[in-house]
């Protein structure tokens, strides 16, 4: 085994090993557990960094062996994989820091962090999966490892949410399995490959391929929370804030979206999918989801629920981007994978801070929070403006790129969607910001507590500040080669061609 084979395996193993160590640690060993967690997170970031550098140089990392006759287990680090892997490695570190602070003093931490690490391991596997089968393996592992996190609090509400979550995702997984086996039955084991496998297929395969496409998208769409398969996402809000952050920004919804990207790009190929007439339908659903999620978000009074519907809307940007066909539009969609992750995780970190420090859960309780927690509120504000698409923040880059891409391929109606969505984003974020900064505090905070020297615990404060800084940088430095946009352009060059 050479280093090139071992790197992806190690990247996977770091969080897997961390999970095993944490499970065997006694509950009281908080400090040791934190050390293990952070070491593993840093190590993983390092490994992913190494691989990103290698991939940039044009190297390939991969390992594969046969599991079941006819099916291989393939791990492969290509540019697209590194986009997702980099995102999750970076955000894992921050979320771990955040979660350590968030769960300070609460029970069952050993269980929580164990499954948390498993969850990240699965995400890493999803990123590095080299064929649909391996992808599916980690996709289901993700479902299983997130369930304990969703029901972590053990209340009736949490258990109900967990049930909804598991019903949706496992059914989605079953549908996906069906699609994969159908595909396998007439096309064999398909590794992910730029350009896909079905260029120039005969007419007899067109109908089955189209059906399989619909099944695959339906299976993946559950996790990507495409309307009408999004029902689990708002319900899962009862989970602790770091879990929500992880679910929304990195792991679950992104796994679905990432899967759709892989299927469209590297199984079917953009050209073929379009030729089969599949992308226009997907675009319509994505556009509808974007608008629908935003409209629903307007009427939510619970802060986390509003953010959840916002996620429903934002994730479909990625999918809409794919359907824009041209390289520019595709880049816009892909870069949103990162941008949305960074922005949404900031928002959830901040929402968690409000809840933990001041006991705020509902939007109408936020009055005056800006004075009490200025740093958190600044981060929240930046992320919200980013979502709306204000230059020069990350969200603007997404929308701008997608807009130009749409114009380039003559899909003008997408501009209308983008505009409407931005207006709606503004409509549900600005009132929140208004309350935070410009309203006087009405009632005393319900559960205020004083944590450390800052407005809240340092563990809770730094992660949102870092991500907020990142989202500003991603916008300002978008043209740099190592910005998310720069990396995405590299991917697009390799995937779609110039």
């Amino acid at each position, binding site marked *: 085994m050479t280093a090139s084979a071992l790197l992806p395996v190690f990247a996977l193993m770091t969080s897997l090993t961390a999970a095993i160590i944490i499970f065997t640690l006694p509950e009281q060993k908080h400090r040791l557990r934190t050390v293990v967690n952070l070491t593993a997170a840093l190590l993983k970031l390092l490994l992913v960094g190494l691989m990103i550098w290698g991939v940039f140089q044009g190297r390939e990392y991969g390992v594969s062996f046969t599991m079941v006759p006819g*099916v291989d287990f393939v791990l492969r680090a290509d540019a697209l994989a590194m986009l997702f892997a980099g995102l999750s490695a970076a955000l894992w570190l921050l979320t771990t820091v955040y979660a350590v602070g968030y769960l300070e003093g609460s029970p069952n931490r050993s269980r929580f962090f164990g499954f948390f690490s498993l969850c990240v391991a699965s995400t890493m596997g999803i990123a590095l999966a080299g064929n649909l089968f391996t992808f599916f*393996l980690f996709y289901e592992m993700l479902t299983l490892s997130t369930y*304990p996190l969703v029901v972590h609090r053990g209340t009736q509400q949490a*258990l109900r949410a967990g049930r909804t979550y*598991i019903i949706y995702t496992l059914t989605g997984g079953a549908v996906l399995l069906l699609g994969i086996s159908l595909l396998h039955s007439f096309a064999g084991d398909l590794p992910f490959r730029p350009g896909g496998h079905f260029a120039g297929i005969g007419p007899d395969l067109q109908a089955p391929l189209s059906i399989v496409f619909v099944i695959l998208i339906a299976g993946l769409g559950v996790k990507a929370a495409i309307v009408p398969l999004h029902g689990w996402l708002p319900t899962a809000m009862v989970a602790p804030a770091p879990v929500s952050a992880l679910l929304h920004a990195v792991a679950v919804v992104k796994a679905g979206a990432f899967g759709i990207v892989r299927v469209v790009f590297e199984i079917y190929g953009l050209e073929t999918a379009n030729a089969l007439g599949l992308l226009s339908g997907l675009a319509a659903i994505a556009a509808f989801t974007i608008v629908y999620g935003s409209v629903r978000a307007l009427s939510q009074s619970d802060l986390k629920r509003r953010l959840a519907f916002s996620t429903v809307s934002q994730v479909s940007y990625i999918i809409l981007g794919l359907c824009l066909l041209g390289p520019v539009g595709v880049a816009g969609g892909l870069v949103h994978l990162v941008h949305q992750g960074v922005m949404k995780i900031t928002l959830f970190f901040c929402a968690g801070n409000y809840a933990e420090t001041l006991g705020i859960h509902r939007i109408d309780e936020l009055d005056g929070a800006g004075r009490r927690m200025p740093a958190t509120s600044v981060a929240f504000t930046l992320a919200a403006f980013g979502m709306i698409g204000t230059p020069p923040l990350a969200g603007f880059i997404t929308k701008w790129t997608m807009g130009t891409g749409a114009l380039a391929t003559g899909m003008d109606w997408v501009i209308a969607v983008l505009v409407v969505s931005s207006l709606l984003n503004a409509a549900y974020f600005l009132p929140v910001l208004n309350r935070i900064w410009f309203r006087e505090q009405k009632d005393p905070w319900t559960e205020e507590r004083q944590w450390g020297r800052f407005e809240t615990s340092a563990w809770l404060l730094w992660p949102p500040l870092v991500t907020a800084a990142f989202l500003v940088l991603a916008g300002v430095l978008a043209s740099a080669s190592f910005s998310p946009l720069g990396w995405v352009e590299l991917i697009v060059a390799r995937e779609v061609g110039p």
Partner: protein
Amino acid sequence: MTLLLMAGLLFTPLAWAVLTLLAGFRRGRGITWLGIVIQVLVSLALWAVVAGEGGFQYPLGGWQAPLGIELRVDGLAVTFVLLTALVAAASGLHAGFYLDPDKQWHRYFWPLFWFLWAGLNVVWLGNDLFNLYVGLELISLSAVGLVALGGQAEALRAAIRYLMAALLGSLAYLLGVALFYGQFGSLSLSGIAFALSHGSAQGAAGFALILMLFGLALKTALYPMHWWLPPAHGIARSPVSALLSALVVKGSFYIAARLWLELEAPLGSLALAQLLGILGSIAVFWGGWQALRQPKLKQVVAYSSVAQIGYLFLLFPLTWNTTEAVALQAQQAMTLQVISHALAKAAMFLSAGNLILSVGSNRVNALAGVSHFLPFSLFSFGLAGVSLMGLPPTGGFAAKWLFLQASLATGQWWWLVVLVGGGLLSAAYVFRVYRASFVEDSNIDHFFHPARRLEIIPMVLALLSLGLGLIAEPVLSVMALVFANGEGT
């Protein structure tokens, strides 16, 4: 070397049965553990021999079939011998810690355990129809004895019910054997297959095959003949339940599968194959649904066996009149399902036993909040559950995948519904247990942590069933080995 290995394989369990019969519980335990080591080593060595050199026939007493009894030592047989060694070793180790040494009747656990093991090996290796019958009876009676061991009225009722079903099944099988002997004058399965392929009358033999399949399906607890299984498996002590669910029901299924694979071409029919498949499908749904509704933990696991056994019967429609490649796929799927279910179910029963020790109750609801204590056994239970659900990378998934591929290749798409729906249903009952363990409302303050050594064993089994999917290829390549050319006589 091979001769000695075979002698060891046949001799050890029987000899150890006698030795442990003469000893008390504690000494029997020590003797048993020594025997387990020997038997596992012998099984491994034999497996390695067959993997390296291919299978062979072993004429007992030096008499060749049809006059004597010949054993068939091929890839599939040694795979199951090894599986049995693993699962029985785990159950035996676990039982040594789990059973109360001071209950005087527990000393009889060991001889029955060894006889059961001996019977299983007879069945895996058997190629003589009557010898298989004796093997079946060896298994059934020792299993019934184990269920009844030290039991109260409820356990006895389950044991009697089990015994009655087993006896009826054996008789149906024996009647089939009688008809076969009457028609072919031979008891060797391969001899009969040979005679059939050279054009003997077939209608009558078809009836005999149906009789035998009926009897074996009864012993395998195929729906709607499953009524005896949940009480027996649910009430036996956990190591016993593990043996029963993991191995015993597989014994009779294995004979049915062997019969079918040898004789389906001349004697099978579309209707019979589909009927068995459909009954298996109903079992998947019915068993899953019942498992979902059981209030007791071990009953959940027992009904899940009914469901999981259902999958095995998809072998029949998928091998009838299909191409060689598809039939091989279906056989591989069956093998993987047997192995993974054996490992996972043994892990589940053993960990369920530990959980019952911990919370002092058999009810699912009594598990409320136990995940608070991070019970190791709950984790093993969960991992085994993943295999039952058929999620990757477990052996259960690999099996399901192969079944899916075989169904698609033969165009029998209706099995897809069973495979996918059954997986979801098993997820439902497994998650019911998880869910209970996460409840935080109830404040249980007392929680008994069983000894680590009790908890390690199911974990190892669960990990094996989990990892099976990753190493399915090499396992299956051995299973496909038949007699090496020229060696078979």
